């Protein structure tokens, strides 16, 4: 029973972190963004801002690049370059970003990055812990 509670806590912890970060940084006046022709409420604004990332970075990209439609930040992409950028755009393509206006990108992203991959990691972690405990019991 105690172990089950630990596994449930491990499952909930990342989602709790997401809620904490969002709710602690929620502005008094909420913003609205345009998602597939619909206006929806968001925490971050949709316009480009020089000192911070916004939904503009999500929609058009960001970082110090030469592309004209990107948000011209002072910040520069450090990690998302070269090989990592290839994987990054590969994941986005896999989730269906090239489908444009369709809803599949959002649903694929939620399915793959919020449900399936975290579940896989949790499963691996639980399997590892269980195997370790079984081995330890046998050794004793």
């Amino acid at each position, binding site marked *: 029973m105690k172990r089950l509670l630990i596994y449930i806590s491990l499952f909930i912890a990342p989602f709790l972190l997401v809620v904490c*970060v969002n709710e602690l940084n929620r502005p008094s006046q909420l913003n609205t963004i345009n998602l597939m022709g619909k206006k929806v409420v968001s925490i971050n604004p949709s316009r480009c801002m020089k000192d911070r990332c*916004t939904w503009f*970075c999500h929609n058009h990209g960001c970082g110090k690049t030469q592309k004209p439609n990107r948000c011209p930040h002072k910040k520069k992409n450090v*990690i998302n370059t070269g090989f990592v*950028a290839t*994987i990054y755009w590969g994941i986005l393509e896999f989730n269906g970003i090239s489908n444009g206006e369709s809803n599949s990108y959002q*649903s694929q992203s939620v399915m793959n990055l*919020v449900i399936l991959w975290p579940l896989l990691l949790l499963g*691996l972690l639980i399997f590892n812990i269980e*195997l370790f405990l079984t081995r330890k019991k046998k050794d004793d």
Partner: protein
Amino acid sequence: MTELINSIYIYCTDFTITSANLIGITYEDFNALIFCVIWPLLTIVSLITLFVQIYLRHKKI
């Protein structure tokens, strides 16, 4: 259902944007750090540990 998925997507994207701003890196960098570095590394390490444990278990038997 679509509304629910979109709400989850917006909430999670807001988390990545906010976290990127808190850490002081770009949104793209934060995404790349989580989805291209940390998660794949954790998955690979977990898989290797699992295979090593299975190997050790069978070796003893």
